[in-house]
């Protein structure tokens, strides 16, 4: 462990560690815009400039005459770093002024407001008084496809987006054109972004220059309540945060986990939360009636399910989108209630077992489009191939992304969990269940990592946790419990 001195305090660091991170660990905030731990260092914004000195041979510390950018200066043994001197503070004030002279004062209508680095740093390090009286630089905005809306007037040229595209997403689609004061960050003539990781552009933008089209004008950042979750979009297990207000999820953001997804998530995972609030999701118990599947009382739907379960000819299909806890409960339940029934897991066409799962791209995506394939296999669930001969009754448990196999040969299908109306059209009954946002639990990702996710919102409609539905199936009509 090496030692340096930050603002008069001795601080331990590991050689190679970034100065901004070393200071942060010691509780000293060095403000920055262009620095991002997941991207290369460019030292462009100049906000993180600090005073740096080294002890000479005589032991006296020799401070460097110029400010040094913390992001690009390697911390060395014995180094003296001063982050609060007059010179440093004047530079911070100056950088804030430079960044704001051409930035519109549109925080009241800007979606970034409340979680904006520019706004926060302006408040902390800027000046309330503005000396600029010249004409502001303005740009005509071009579109950037379905995910991202660009507002170039708000851009502070930190180039995080350019670096994300080139270094992480692997496509040099976001570029800086022209130069100097006229530099514009753009795609060619406003071409749609190609990467399917485009949402990250908005995450890393330190201002409201790049915002998510789907989130614009929908919610103020400060109204959102956050829950630590894990993406259920595939078997990668990217760490995410679900953000909701009044039981409506408004967006998904990545949480940093350097061992899983680093700082990023894909668009498929990011926008998967939209299915929670799909207008076609079956949110009340339903049974097949004269006019098709229709709303019903829980008791009626449970009775139908019990009928199938006790028929002696039941086959049970379990989506590999169930949490580990749910899959465990279900296993125990089936051992007791239908010990003879064949039980299979299902999920992604073409990915029958964990051994079929593999990386689907160079970054995060996996072939298995369900989150817990590996967890279910660990619990001993067997992969589904096709319905066994004579399987008249089918009970399907499913929580989200598992793709329903062809069940047309079955006489009776009862679904427990999350279904869309169009999927369940021919079902005898549906017992509505919870998406991952409505419950806490564990997923086991592709390399066996168990990750907990927290509930973000309350159950939607009349949907119930699987444990409750199982209890009803076990107890209704036995006098030991009631719906």
């Amino acid at each position, binding site marked *: 462990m090496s030692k340096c001195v930050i603002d008069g305090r001795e601080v331990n660091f590991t050689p190679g560690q970034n100065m901004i991170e070393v200071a942060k660990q010691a509780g000293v905030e060095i403000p920055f815009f262009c620095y991002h731990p997941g991207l290369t260092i460019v030292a462009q914004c*100049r906000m993180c400039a600090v005073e740096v000195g080294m002890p000479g041979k005589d032991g006296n510390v020799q401070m460097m005459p110029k400010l040094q950018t913390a992001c690009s200066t390697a911390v060395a043994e014995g180094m003296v770093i001063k982050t609060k001197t007059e010179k440093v503070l004047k530079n911070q004030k100056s950088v804030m002024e430079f960044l704001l*002279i051409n930035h519109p004062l549109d925080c009241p209508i800007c979606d970034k407001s409340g979680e904006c680095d520019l706004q926060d740093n302006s408040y902390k390090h800027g000046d309330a008084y503005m000396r600029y009286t010249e004409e502001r630089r303005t740009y005509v905005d071009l579109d950037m496809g379905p995910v991202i809306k660009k507002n170039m007037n708000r851009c502070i*040229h930190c180039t995080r987006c350019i670096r994300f595209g080139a270094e992480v997403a692997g496509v040099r689609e976001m570029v800086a054109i022209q130069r*100097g004061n006229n*530099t514009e960050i753009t795609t060619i003539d406003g071409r749609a972004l190609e990467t399917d990781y485009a949402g990250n552009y908005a995450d890393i933008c330190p201002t409201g220059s790049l915002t998510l089209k789907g989130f614009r004008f929908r919610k103020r950042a400060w109204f959102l309540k956050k829950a630590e979750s894990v993406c259920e979009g595939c078997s990668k297990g990217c760490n995410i945060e679900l953000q909701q207000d009044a039981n409506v999820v408004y967006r998904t953001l990545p949480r940093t986990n350097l061992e899983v997804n680093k700082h990023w998530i894909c668009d498929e995972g990011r926008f998967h939360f939209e299915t929670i609030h799909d207008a076609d999701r079956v949110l009340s118990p339903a049974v097949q009636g004269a006019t098709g599947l229709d709303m019903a009382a829980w008791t009626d739907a449970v009775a139908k399910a019990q009928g199938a379960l006790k028929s002696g000819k039941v086959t049970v299909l379990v989506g590999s989108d169930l949490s580990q806890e749910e899959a465990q409960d279900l296993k125990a339940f089936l051992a007791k209630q239908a010990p003879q029934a064949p039980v299979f897991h299902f999920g992604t066409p073409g990915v029958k077992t964990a051994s079929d799962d593999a990386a689907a791209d160079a970054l995060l995506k996996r072939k298995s489009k369900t989150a817990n394939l590996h967890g279910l296999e660990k619990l001993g669930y067997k992969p589904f191939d096709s319905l066994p001969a004579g399987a008249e009754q089918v009970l399907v448990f499913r929580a989200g992304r598992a793709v329903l196999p062809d069940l047309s040969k079955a006489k009776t299908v009862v679904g427990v969990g999350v279904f869309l109306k169009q999927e369940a059209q021919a079902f005898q009954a549906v017992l509505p269940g919870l998406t991952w946002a409505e419950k806490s639990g564990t997923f086991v990702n592709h390399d066996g990592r168990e990750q907990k996710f927290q509930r973000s919102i309350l159950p939607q409609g009349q949907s119930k946790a699987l444990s409750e539905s199982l209890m009803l199936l076990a107890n209704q009509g036995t006098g030991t419990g009631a719906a």
Partner: protein
Amino acid sequence: MHPALQAETLYIQHFRKKDEARPLSYYLEQMQGYTALGKALKMAPDAVIDEVKKSNLRGRGGAGFPTGMKWGFIPKQSPKPKYVVCNADESEPGTFKDRDIMRYTPHLLIEGMIIAGHAIGSKIGYIYIRGEYTREAKLLDQAIAEAYSKGYLGKNILGSGHDFDLTVHRGAGAYICGEETALLNSLEGKRGEPRVKPPFPAQAGAFSGPTVVNNVETLANVPFIVNRGGEWFSSLGKVERSGGTRLISVSGHVKKPGVYELPAGAVTIRELIYDICGGITDDKKLKAVIPGGSSAPVLTPDEIDVVYDIEPLMKIGTMMGSAALMVVSEDYCAVKLIKRITKFYAHESCGQCTPCREGCKWMEDILHRIEDGHGREQDLALLLDIADNINGKTLCALGDAAAGPVSSFVRKFKGEFEAHIRGKKCPNV
């Protein structure tokens, strides 16, 4: 004739002796062409570097860094190829000396580069020439082809076992590519944006290989150093720590503008203007001197008795830069001039770093306003503060290049600025 000109000082500008085209034959017969190369190839690389160190040759591009020391930074062993890159971007306003070298004695540069290659163990060289110099690029191409045909370039040069390939690479209109790391990015097919340092080019330069970047004139001095020895070269300089002669570009309001080759530190600015360049146009009075390319802080007539070299100019708060002296006579408006200079730096800012991107344009806008008669009293303090907020805070030296002139003009011509502001128009018109 001025004593400084009486002495035989035309080494690089040998061509001045006879006003005609200089083919390879001239270089070989009249200038001992490629004899230094033959000599250097028989020397150990370190011995060549030592000779250059002894010569007190300092970079002629602007920074004045000791060339031998720069070469010494290149690691002996490198897993990646090493490169010699010639900075022929000559873009600091007021500078036009390298153009003459490339036009009249391109082989001097080529020979210098091959020797540099031998000294640092590099087999590949590029001449990064500013895009506008199309004629000079063609002349260099021809000269390089000649050098290949005579065995000075290519494999096994003069039977020494040393290889060296040389290519002319044209820029395309960007002042900032004169900054060595921006130049390297441009050479690699990227935007000419300066890089974060460290790593320095000596560690990771062109294509990530150890690279030495030297100005045209710097490299053109190398054959003389090798032929006549570092001590001889050093003794040419009339001030300490500056060896050789300097090509001085003089422009603006003088009777005889042009490039003059003079021993380093041989003259004062006054001597340069009045004795060598024939004085001010139309015998007007001197108003200002910009001594080292437009990025050098301005001097007033009472400051021109300074010896024209690196250290003396530094001592009075300005710089020699690329040795480009621009002379301004009494009736030219100081506000108009500094606005034009600032407009240039705003136009040439790459846009990467905040203070330069935003600050240069801001200063230009304010200066424009003052020139147009819309200035305010507080503008001068504001200009000085913006300049201070840029100076020393940017990623590369362009910020300093823009800030230094502004603060020097505002301080030294304060009255003229105030006259614009109070009179709401230019008092010179």
